[in-house]
């Protein structure tokens, strides 16, 4: 229980977010109307994705210093969870755009940058799969991970601000603080964000622990057989 309190917290936060998101009262804004509820899902998922990818990069740096396989496992699993959240963010965003901006994929720089960011990390997965030797794979994908994150940040933050964009906060639109200045939304938004981040950590945790167990099993089989 001492080690797993955060998992229970995750469940509580996400249930709260979903319940409040779908049933709670939200401020009325033109164009957005009820779809502003997506703020709890779409935007929080992007925050979760960035957090996952940041953690993945930190573990990559750790791997390069320590050469422990565990660090590489963690880095890979956090990156995969980050990609999952990114794809979900794209899907939720696309659904939202369909109702508010008229088409599922309007020609918006932030959307395009996000898609390219996803491509960068898919290429990371491809890179990992093209190595046989574990140590080589770990080292080279760690290098790529750090490099990719350094390019990813300007790609999704700097680029949309410099061009016209439909997204709030970029290209001359008011930042989205004008939406969640409403303290009601803030009450759901921050817990939802934390809930999704914790969910990501939980998923990655399970995955890299499974990997570690698989590795021990393989070694045992090799020694025995």
């Amino acid at each position, binding site marked *: 229980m001492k080690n797993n309190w955060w998992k229970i917290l995750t469940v509580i936060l996400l249930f709260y977010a979903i319940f409040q998101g779908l049933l709670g009262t939200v401020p009325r804004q033109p164009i957005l109307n009820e779809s502003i509820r997506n703020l709890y899902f779409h935007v929080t998922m992007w925050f979760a994705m960035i957090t996952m990818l940041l953690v993945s990069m930190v573990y990559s740096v750790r791997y*390069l210093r320590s050469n422990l396989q565990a660090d590489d496992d963690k880095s890979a699993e956090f990156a995969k969870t980050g990609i999952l959240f990114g794809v979900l963010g794209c899907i939720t965003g696309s659904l939202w755009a369909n109702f508010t901006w008229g088409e599922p994929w309007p020609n918006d720089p932030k959307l395009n*940058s996000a898609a*390219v*960011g996803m*491509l*960068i990390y898919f*290429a990371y997965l*491809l*890179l990992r799969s*093209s*190595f*046989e030797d574990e140590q*080589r794979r770990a*080292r*080279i994908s*760690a*290098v*790529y991970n*750090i*490099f*990719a994150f*350094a*390019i990813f940040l*300007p*790609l999704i933050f*700097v*680029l949309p601000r*410099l*061009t016209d964009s439909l997204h709030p906060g970029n290209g001359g639109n008011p930042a989205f603080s004008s939406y969640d200045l409403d303290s009601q939304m803030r009450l759901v938004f921050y817990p939802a964000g934390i809930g999704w981040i914790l969910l990501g950590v939980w998923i990655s945790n399970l995955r890299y622990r499974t990997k570690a167990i698989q590795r021990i099993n393989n070694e045992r089989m090799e020694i025995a057989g």
Partner: protein
Amino acid sequence: MNEVKNLIWKEIALEWRQRYALSGVLLYVISTVFVCYLSFNLKRNFLTPIVWNTLLWIILLFTAVNAIAKSFAQERHGRLLYYYTLSSPQAIIISKIIYNCLLMMLLAGIGFGFYVFVMGNPVIDLGLYIVAIALGSVGFASILTLVAGIASKAENSGTLMAVLSFPIILPTLLMTIKLAKNALDGLDRSVSMDEISTLLAIDAIVIALSYLLFPYLWRS
């Protein structure tokens, strides 16, 4: 510093002896421009400026990917071990980046010259356009050198080079195209300061990262 200078000189000398890669990529640029010229089947100055600009940069992008992929693939394994004992990895990566920058600027210059020759020249602010070409070349070279290093360590390095490089090079490509378009339209130079500073910032980050990360790549 001396080490870096010697290494750059070594690359240039090696290249000049055979001129294999250089002439190959030069032929690539000229053929691509010519194919585009024939496919568009136009009299001069018929392309809209946006298409003219974007087409040039796409040609330069593919040229860069091809040219820089060769920079790591050329050396044979025995020779790599020899370099490993002689010089520090930092010197090697800096020298490769500088060599690739020079190479790209040369190729971009020749490519641009030939492009203007066959496709007409709607550029109004030529000075800023040349700056855009120079910045773009440096940007491509710095990013692609490290990616070429990464891809060269993997098995199917040809596909991997392309797949890894295109998403990563996109911010640089978009900024450069925007800057070039501003130059083409003859806008006031202060308008482009944002793009120039972003390009320089990305270059600085990428070169610093390459310097820090290449030693880890080198150890195999």
